[in-house]
């Protein structure tokens, strides 16, 4: 039997004006289990708390009910009070007789009656409380960053800067991501490579950062502070440690038919190649699909010419296992495939290109060495038409329902660069809306119109077709209320962007939730935008939603701050009110696992004694208290009631229901 103390707070006149606090204390004293019942002006004051502490000692209380303001206000206070007097902080219940009683009722009799019922309800619940202890788990002081684009690089650098070790796992042979492919960046028009490559080099040189390129996540186990990750290091057939990146092999390689991924396939590269001049690591890689030696055993020229013997045609994938305390997802994006948009002729006409391809064409290190020429015939184009929102804001099912956010700005950038570099060109932009929120963004766009004479046409393109040498771009001009046809030499499509396809698999492994567009879901749209609901998983860059570079970098740094905050702790205090499964009842049916947003539930085969020396092996659910956040979704999904929630147990809530219904 518990010994319960009831403490009724006046809250000055806030409560006592409408609730007869003395009567409440008196009536509750008669409840079974209650040994002391007091009232006081301000229970939360030092004196009020002392009253509670003394009562606990004097009467040997096992639990405390405080009738006062909302538990959201002072539950923590009174828990501490009780803890300091030697009883478990979870043996405290609050009856909210201020916000939910005295402040909303005027009739004293009515409010007093309600306060008594609320007090009884708290007593009823408290009788079923059990002392709870929040568990602790150690933190592995190492972070994993999945993705080596600008988001991943920035997060990794910031985490490393704080003194923690970071691994970057990148699926392609070099870090740098999409940003490395860009020519200039808006709204300042500075060179992307100039600002990105120093950061890439920083990563490579930082001894806290370990870069694993051409690698993929194989499996993830564990939970916040204690992840175990298997990483597949795919065979690149070149020893990363010995290769000096001299590039001789590239020149000697006779198989030069591979599409250059870095240049969006606009030109070719050899079977052994370094993705681009500033690649990190600056190490060659063999494309086994192209390599003659690997395909049919005849060749070996690269190996013969390699002075450091870095080439190993028999190299196999390798799995490394590492432990981490936190994981950053920075998997980035790719432009969508345009197969659903044949009206723009992307697949038909070589001179219809995507914006990212156009970046490469404009780039000095690109396939045309920075010369603006048409892919079809290498001629200099004079009329260039841009089409925006290709596949963005599309709810018809062909594209993506969201705004890709960056297209308006980069299209303005392209238009401006074109007009700047080639004043002889005529530039048209079909747009639906021009969206330029951001510092200096609208000014930037206006410059394109006002200073560079770019022709912005409000309306969408209906079709692109060829007449002679020209691409005829037919669209609406809604302002002039006419249908226009613009004979162009080149058409640039601002294709929507979508999360990197690899993210689905990764999200599943991380049990991080993902939305219908494959963007990772943040823990809270406003207040926790860089965390996944799954503890220990953080979101950096476009994997969470479309972003431009400054936003990506700020999110990456915010993300790093969160990771640093986590890794700075030696242990993690877990939520004490967690779910737990009664293994004697659990059937292991796995429905609870389906609704757990945190992946806190796992199943084990466990042996149970049946009596008479017999045993039975049953599959039962186990909750990881370090991961469970205590929502209780599992408890209702479980038909047998094996799953219950500490602090809000089925019995407790039922007892509260009983108590509030008692008349």
């Amino acid at each position: 039997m518990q010994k319960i103390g009831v403490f009724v707070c006046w809250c000055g006149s806030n409560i006592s004006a409408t609730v007869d606090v003395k009567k409440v204390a008196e009536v509750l004293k008669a409840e079974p289990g209650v040994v002391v019942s007091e009232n006081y002006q301000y229970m939360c004051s030092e004196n009020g708390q002392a009253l509670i502490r003394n009562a606990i000692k004097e009467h040997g209380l096992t639990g405390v009910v405080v009738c006062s303001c909302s538990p959201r206000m002072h539950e923590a206070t009174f828990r501490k009070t009780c803890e300091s007097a030697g009883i478990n902080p979870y043996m405290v219940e609050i009856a909210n007789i201020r916000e939910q009683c005295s402040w909303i009722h005027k009739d004293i009799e009515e409010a007093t009656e309600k306060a008594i019922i609320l007090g009884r309800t708290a007593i009823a619940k408290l009788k079923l409380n059990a002392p709870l202890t929040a568990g602790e788990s150690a933190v592995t002081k190492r972070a994993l960053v999945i993705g080596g684009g600008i988001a991943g690089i920035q997060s990794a650098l910031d985490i490393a800067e704080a003194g923690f070790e970071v691994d970057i796992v990148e699926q392609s042979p070099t870090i740098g991501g999409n940003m490395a492919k860009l020519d200039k960046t808006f709204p300042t028009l500075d060179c992307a490579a100039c600002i990105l490559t120093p950061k890439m080099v920083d990563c490579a040189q930082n001894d806290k950062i370990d870069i694993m390129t051409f690698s993929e996540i194989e499996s993830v186990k564990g939970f916040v502070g204690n992840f175990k990750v298997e990483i597949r290091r795919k065979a690149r057939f070149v020893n990363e440690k010995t290769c000096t990146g001299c590039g001789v092999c590239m020149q000697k390689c006779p198989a030069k038919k591979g599409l250059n991924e870095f240049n969006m396939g606009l030109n070719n590269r050899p079977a052994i190649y370094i993705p681009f001049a500033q690649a990190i690591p600056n190490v060659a890689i063999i494309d086994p699909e192209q390599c003659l030696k690997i395909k049919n055993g005849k060749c070996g020229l690269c190996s013969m010419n390699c002075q450091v013997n870095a080439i190993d045609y028999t190299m196999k994938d390798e799995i490394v296992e590492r432990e981490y305390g936190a994981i950053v997802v920075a998997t980035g994006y790719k432009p969508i495939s345009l197969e659903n948009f044949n009206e723009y002729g992307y697949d038909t006409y070589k001179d219809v290109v995507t914006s990212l391809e156009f970046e490469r064409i404009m780039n000095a290190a690109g396939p045309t060495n920075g010369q603006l020429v048409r892919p079809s015939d290498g001629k200099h184009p004079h009329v260039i038409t841009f089409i925006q929102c290709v596949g963005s804001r599309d709810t018809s099912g062909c594209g993506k329902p969201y705004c890709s956010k960056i297209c308006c700005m980069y299209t303005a950038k392209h238009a401006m660069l074109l007009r700047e570099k080639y004043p002889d060109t005529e530039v048209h932009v079909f747009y639906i809306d021009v969206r330029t929120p951001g510092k200096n963004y609208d000014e930037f766009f206006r410059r394109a119109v006002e200073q560079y004479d770019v022709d912005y046409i409000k309306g969408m393109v209906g079709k692109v077709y060829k007449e002679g040498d020209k691409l005829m771009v037919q669209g609406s001009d809604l302002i002039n209320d006419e249908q226009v046809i613009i004979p162009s030499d080149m058409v640039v499509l601002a294709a929507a962007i979508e999360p990197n396809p690899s993210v689905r698999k990764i999200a599943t492994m991380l049990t991080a939730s993902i939305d219908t567009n494959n963007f990772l879901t943040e823990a809270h749209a406003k207040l926790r935008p860089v965390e996944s609901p799954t503890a220990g998983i953080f979101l950096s860059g476009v994997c969470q939603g479309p972003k431009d570079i400054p936003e990506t970098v700020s999110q990456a740094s915010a993300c790093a701050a969160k990771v640093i905050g986590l890794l700075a702790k030696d242990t993690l205090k877990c939520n004490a009110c967690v779910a737990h499964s009664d293994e004697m009842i659990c059937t292991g049916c796995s429905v609870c696992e389906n609704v757990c947003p945190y992946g806190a539930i796992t199943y084990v085969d466990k042996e149970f004694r049946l009596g008479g020396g017999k045993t039975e092996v049953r599959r039962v659910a186990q909750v990881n208290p370090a991961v469970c956040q205590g929502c209780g979704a599992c408890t209702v999904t479980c038909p047998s009631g094996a799953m219950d929630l500490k602090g809000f147990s089925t019995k407790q809530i039922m007892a509260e229901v009983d108590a509030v219904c008692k008349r």
Partner: protein
Amino acid sequence: MQRLENAVLSKAKELLESGKVSRVLGWTKGEFCYDVSPCVFNTVDELKNFVYNGFCGANLSKYLINESKKEGKIAVFLKPCDTYSYNQLVKEHRIKVENVYAVGVECQGKFDIEKFYAKGVGFVASVEEGLTEVKVNGETVLNRNDVKLERCLVCNKKHVAGEEIVELNEKLPSDSDRFEMVKKLEAMTADERFAFWKKELSKCIRCNACRNVCPACNCTKCVFDNPNSEVSAKANATSFEEQMFHIIRAFHVAGRCTDCGECSRVCPQNIPLHLLNRKFISDIDKLYGEYQAGEDTTSKGPLTSFTKEDAEPSDAVGGNK
């Protein structure tokens, strides 16, 4: 249909003889043709009591929870509807599939002995089964549909699990709407519905036959048996407990119920319990897209998944005022 029995029996023999399985879960003869019981056969010799006829209506899948835990492989004969329950149990990790050799068996609908009595046949000594007709005691010819269990009249289930199928005739399709009665009830006024269910549920003797036969009700300990659940009871002391037991039972199997109809088949008071489950199925179909529990072994059930555009509870309520 004698041919079907022979085919099933020889399949059982073959499986046991070949050592492919060490046990067979099938049916054993009763005192009459209609009181057959599920049974595990360990040897070919024991198969002399094996029987397979239109009264083999029980769903065998639930027995596999325990049987598949035992040593050795067990063969089981499953009607189309049983295969859905089987899949659902596999999905919920209740059956060790590696210990089961599932054989689908043709089904043209199983019999309800009460319907023979209702047709004026006082004693059923023998039934010769045809696809659409049956001959009772060698003389009375009845329409097969007139003596089928309710669930079989609306059944269009196919075999969705099993290593092989014993089938001599293709299953005759049903064009009846299984939600007909649900719709009828929904069209009634709330008062009429209340009166209907009050009468039906007041018959309940809480014998738990519906629960214990239900393949979805496979909890180690049911909440209603668990003194810690605050709702445990061995009898319906009031009409509230009648309502609660059946609402909660239907809710616990919602999205998992394959509509196998066993609950209604076994109810000693003939309460149409399937109408509760079908209401949930019909609501789920309407609100969240058609879903047939047990059609596969991997999909998430409708109550353990969601979409952001789901209907609000205020809009989702079915039935007239």
